[in-house]
């Protein structure tokens, strides 16, 4: 065994031991970890921690209206800052309400520390009031979790929780603290004294693999970069290095939904997003390439389409910090298990040191092919003089906000895909969306978290009228903390994405996908103390958007759009990248096997 099992030096060795109550330790540990904001909701089992918070001025607590909102807000905070998000909720229903958010964070690799209160230790296992098996329930939706039964282990556990959530492949963790432990006094260890006894994620790339990757890139005739959320998670430096690598090689680049912003959408090498609703050029480049360089993405089913038809003729390089992603879905020819920043830095450096050149002649032909695909203008749509087309609304929103410091969050559905396709991101950490879990209700609380971290920025939740009703109550949080978030609802009066699938796969039987009995969003905004705006025609849209931007309060914008518009391009479930539909006229035959898929 080569692991270091020695415990941290006793605090006495560094000075007098610090004695605190468990609740005080929580606050102290958060501060020692650099936490400035937490998102939470009180209850019986966390009252001692709330008491310690009351006595403290260093941490801003954001009181949400539902614990799911706390977790999504923490996710928005984390994704837009690169710092971990922190959540504080009570036992039982507080913890169970957080589960959707934790699962969301696990799927999208968002670093979160959730602190949950628990019934006192002597009541655990007795079906006590507001008792639930929090570590049991959250085990499959956390990277790791702990029930702390000894106050002297609390500070160590909290510091380890931060280390685990933020290093390696990031993810959510839960620290469950019984109420009696919060009251008890014990010895507090500062972070410097704590080292997890076995957790050591591998982050350094294998130099041989980097050299091989550079060789493969120099030899490629039809290469494409396929990048993902891993580049964003690795930090802004990874995005810079990615840009440099693209400049050095001149290769085309596409990205997953989670990776948008790592590479500027304004640059000529950018092909747009790939996958189920990706562009014609991105998906065809993926299908026809001879070298795929996958950086921090995981071959999700939304990206690959039918796996046995996925990029059949290419060699594949896969960089991921998580070894279990290698060969999980798609067999690759070269694996690099490492931190993306380190691996990209090495690739750039080796490319330069060896004075590598891309195959210019081959690339010229490849780009000619790519330009031909681009010529299909797969994001084009038929605009209207009378109805606001949702695509037009997103385009106008982009045009009228692009010169501002704008952060976009979304809910889940057609509006999310239109936002991803049409909003042009130039920088990482400016796009917050629920990718892996596809959680309706993510966007509004996420916007709260983003605005909390960036008070002067323009934070817009591009929403659907159905999704937004799932976490609507966080409007109240926005009012309480003076967060001027903008909820821009593409109101098509349908669960549009569901309706689209019912149209394509279920004979147009729109079973329960009509948004019946919608509230009057403008009146609702006013009831919350927000500003409500509504646009019904293309003519009035710009003026209303400008008004929305100028209001320094939370705004709920009811943008009435064409209810029957579908989101294209689309790779139907079970189809290959080169079997995309560009418009309703393309038919939309879905194989029997495809109907099984989601």
């Amino acid at each position, binding site marked *: 065994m080569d692991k270091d099992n020695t415990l941290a030096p006793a605090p006495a060795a560094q000075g007098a031991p610090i004695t605190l109550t468990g609740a005080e330790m929580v606050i102290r540990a958060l501060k020692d970890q650099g936490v400035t904001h937490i998102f939470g909701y009180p209850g019986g089992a966390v009252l001692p921690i709330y008491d310690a918070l009351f006595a403290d001025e260093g941490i801003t607590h954001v009181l949400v209206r539902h614990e799911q909102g706390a977790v999504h807000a923490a996710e928005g905070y984390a994704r837009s800052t690169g710092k971990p998000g922190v959540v504080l909720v009570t036992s039982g229903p507080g913890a169970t309400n957080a589960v959707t958010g934790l699962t969301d964070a696990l799927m999208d690799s968002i670093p979160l520390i959730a602190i949950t209160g628990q019934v006192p230790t002597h009541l655990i296992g007795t079906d006590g009031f507001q008792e639930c098996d929090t570590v049991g329930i959250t085990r499959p939706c956390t990277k790791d979790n702990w029930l702390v039964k000894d106050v002297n282990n609390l500070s160590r556990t909290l510091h380890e929780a931060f280390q685990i959530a933020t290093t390696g492949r990031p993810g959510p963790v839960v620290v469950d603290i019984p109420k009696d432990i919060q009251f008890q006094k014990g010895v507090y260890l500062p972070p410097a004294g704590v080292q*997890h006894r*076995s957790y050591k994620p591998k982050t350094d790339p294998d130099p041989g693999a980097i050299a091989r990757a550079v060789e493969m890139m120099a030899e490629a005739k039809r290469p494409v970069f396929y990048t993902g959320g891993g580049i964003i998670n690795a930090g802004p430096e990874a995005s810079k290095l990615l840009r440099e690598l693209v400049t050095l090689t001149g290769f085309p680049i596409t990205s997953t939904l989670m990776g948008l912003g790592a590479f500027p959408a304004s640059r000529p090498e950018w092909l747009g997003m790939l996958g189920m609703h990706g562009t014609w050029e991105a998906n065809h480049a993926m299908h026809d390439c001879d070298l795929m360089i996958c950086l921090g993405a995981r071959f999700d089913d939304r990206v690959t389409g039918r796996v046995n038809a996925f990029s059949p003729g290419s060699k594949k390089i896969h960089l991921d910090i998580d070894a279990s992603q290698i060969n999980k879905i798609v067999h690759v020819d070269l694996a690099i298990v490492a931190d993306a920043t380190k691996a990209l830095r090495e690739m750039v450096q080796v490319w330069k040191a060896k004075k590598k050149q891309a195959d210019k002649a081959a690339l010229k032909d490849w780009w000619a092919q790519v330009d031909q695909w681009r010529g299909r203008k797969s994001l084009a749509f038929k605009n209207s003089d009378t109805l606001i087309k949702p695509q037009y609304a997103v385009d106008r929103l982009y045009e009228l906000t692009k010169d501002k410091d704008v952060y976009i969050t979304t809910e889940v559905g057609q509006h999310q895909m239109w936002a991803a396709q049409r909003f042009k991101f130039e920088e990482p950490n400016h796009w917050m969306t629920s990718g892996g879990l596809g959680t309706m209700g993510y966007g509004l609380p996420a916007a709260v978290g983003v605005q909390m971290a960036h008070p002067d920025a323009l934070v817009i939740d591009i929403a659907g009228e159905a999704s937004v009703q799932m976490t609507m109550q966080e409007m109240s949080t926005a009012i309480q903390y003076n967060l001027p978030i903008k909820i821009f609802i593409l109101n098509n009066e349908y669960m549009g994405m569901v309706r689209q699938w019912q149209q394509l796969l279920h004979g147009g039987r729109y079973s329960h996908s009509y948004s019946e009995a919608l509230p009057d969003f403008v009146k609702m905004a006013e009831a919350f103390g927000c500003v409500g705006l509504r646009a019904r025609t293309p003519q009035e849209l710009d003026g209303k958007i400008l008004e929305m931007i100028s209001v320094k309060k939370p705004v709920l914008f009811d943008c009435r759009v064409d209810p029957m518009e579908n989101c294209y391009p689309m790779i139907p479930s079970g189809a290959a990248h080169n079997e995309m539909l560009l418009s309703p006229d393309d038919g939309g035959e879905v194989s029997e096997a495809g109907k099984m898929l989601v």
Partner: protein
Amino acid sequence: MSADVERHTLTVLVDNEAGVLARVVGLFSGRGYNIESLTVAEVDAASRTSRISIVTSGTPAVIAQIEAQLGRVVPVRKVTNWTSTRGGIEREMALIKVAGTGEKRVEALRMADAFRARPVDTTHTSFVFEITGAPAKIDSFIDLMRPLGLVDVSRTGVAAISRGPEAM
């Protein structure tokens, strides 16, 4: 088992802390992998490590995923596949109860002797045998006992270790 499904024995060395077994087992059920047998015990009190031995089955790609997914679990220190490294010894212990009289009883005792199974409880109408060996040997012994009055079986699951002087 379909053609490319193989049975593999894995050993997982973990930090001995609350919930780690649940996390490992939950990974199998959550991702739809099989557990054919499972044994777990602390093996080093000083370093607080436990050893989990798992017999599982799957295609080579699934087995590789299982190893990789186990490697992701935070308190997991090391994962070894004894079936693909072929450097391991696998043993299992079983307690096997056989009831009967007369000729069958004599035959059971004779077979037990041939398999080096030891009677650890004896009455006029029954034996409990203790047997140790590779799982296949225990399988055959159980099959032989079936017509001779087999009434109950308790197996420990596989424990595995490497040959030679090295640790896993």
